[in-house]
């Protein structure tokens, strides 16, 4: 059984969370601290490659089995399902136009790979690593929610969202998916031998790079929050905290159903609780251009991401540790 206080302190006192807090503070204090776009992208490329590669190596060591395939299917199903839960919840809490609600629902059905990285890091630090293939589950959970969101928008009659070639290219071949899955396949194909060759590059510096990246995310989240105060009404903000809890509950049910390890259950909860702010916003701009992108981004990045990082992850771990193997 995990000690809740220890866990919360470990999480809040970790360099990763403190780096995020520094970025958030700098943004809210209106400091001129900033990361050039190219460096931020470079950091994200490194992290996606590293996490994908390590996930592939773990699968190579573990081998393909029915549980992996079942986890992928459950991940896809959760991503399809979450917008159907988010849509009526947001309708109850706000008076946003249907197309904006559908767009937000799409973001919340998809995942935040940065939250996943932070959770993986906390689990590893506590000796509770999840299944290596959870990286692949994360990748397949990016896109299905976007399709549900388009269906919801079209059903509302306020949008003529279409899934043309550009849309499919955006959701299936966006850079983060290609990199994550590509690195996963390389890690899978080369296994421990491949990892030994590049370990000094993708394992040892990983946490330091993650700290810098979280510092940048803190800056981006803080500035996004300050720039969108008018958009984030009470109902919208409540949704930003409530929906992760709903998502985590669905992820928990999925993880228990699959019989995942404690780490695996927590990672599935985190994936279901998080909202995308990298891949989905671009796809939504192509598919639902009428939707106001500031609402989805501010909510996902300004409220849900900090919530998951500081409160959500330890909470999900606590709940999962009480249920897994019980």
């Amino acid at each position, binding site marked *: 059984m995990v000690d809740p206080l220890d866990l919360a302190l470990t999480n809040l006192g970790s360099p990763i969370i403190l780096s995020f807090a520094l970025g958030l503070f700098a943004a809210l204090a209106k400091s001129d601290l900033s990361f050039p776009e190219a460096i*931020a992208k470079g950091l994200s490329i490194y992290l996606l490659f590293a996490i994908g590669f390590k996930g592939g190596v773990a699968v190579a060591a573990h081998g393909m089995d029915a549980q992996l395939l079942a986890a992928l299917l459950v991940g896809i199903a959760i991503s399809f399902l979450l917008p159907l839960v988010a849509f009526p919840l947001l309708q109850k809490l706000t008076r946003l136009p249907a197309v904006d609600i559908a767009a937000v629902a799409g973001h919340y059905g998809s995942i935040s790979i940065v939250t996943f990285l932070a959770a993986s890091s906390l689990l590893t630090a506590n000796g509770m690593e999840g299944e290596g293939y959870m990286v692949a589950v994360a990748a397949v959970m990016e896109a299905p929610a976007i399709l549900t969101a388009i269906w919801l928008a079209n059903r509302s009659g306020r949008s003529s969202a279409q899934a043309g070639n*550009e849309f499919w290219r955006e959701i299936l071949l966006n850079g983060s998916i290609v990199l994550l899955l590509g690195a996963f396949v390389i890690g899978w194909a080369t296994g421990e031998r491949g990892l030994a060759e590049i370990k000094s590059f993708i394992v040892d510096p990983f946490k330091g790079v993650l700290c810098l990246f979280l510092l940048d995310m803190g800056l981006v989240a803080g*500035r996004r929050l300050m*720039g969108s105060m008018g958009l984030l009404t009470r109902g919208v903000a409540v949704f930003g905290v409530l929906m992760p809890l709903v998502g985590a509950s669905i992820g928990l049910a999925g993880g228990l159903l699959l019989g995942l390890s404690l780490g695996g259950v927590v990672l599935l909860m985190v994936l279901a609780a998080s909202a995308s702010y990298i891949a*989905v916003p671009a796809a939504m*701009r192509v598919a639902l*251009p*009428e939707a106001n*992108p500031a609402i989805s*981004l501010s909510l996902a990045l300004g409220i849900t991401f900090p919530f998951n990082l500081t409160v959500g992850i330890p909470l999900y771990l606590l709940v999962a540790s009480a249920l897994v193997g019980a």
Partner: protein
Amino acid sequence: MKTHDAKRVEIFIEAVVERQLTNALIDAGVTGYTVLPVSGGNGQSGPWSREGQIGRGSGMVAVVCIVRPERVDELLEAVFAVVEKQIGMVSVSDAAVVRLEKF
């Protein structure tokens, strides 16, 4: 030096539809264009900045092209097919070019 009248069409559009726009320009017979990065701004969807961003969902680009005056209407029709629903802005201004045969 002798110069010739031309039109400068400047399009600010979401980075995510840059390829759609440039494809539309090529289909409309525009022989050349330049894509410029935009570092930030403020509009109906609020302020934004490219600093620290890793996704393309909230970024903008500027696409500039110079055309002969008689080709502006055709170009704008092609451009509006892409720009109409997106966040963006199109402006047309007078310009002067030295080598008219290039446009």
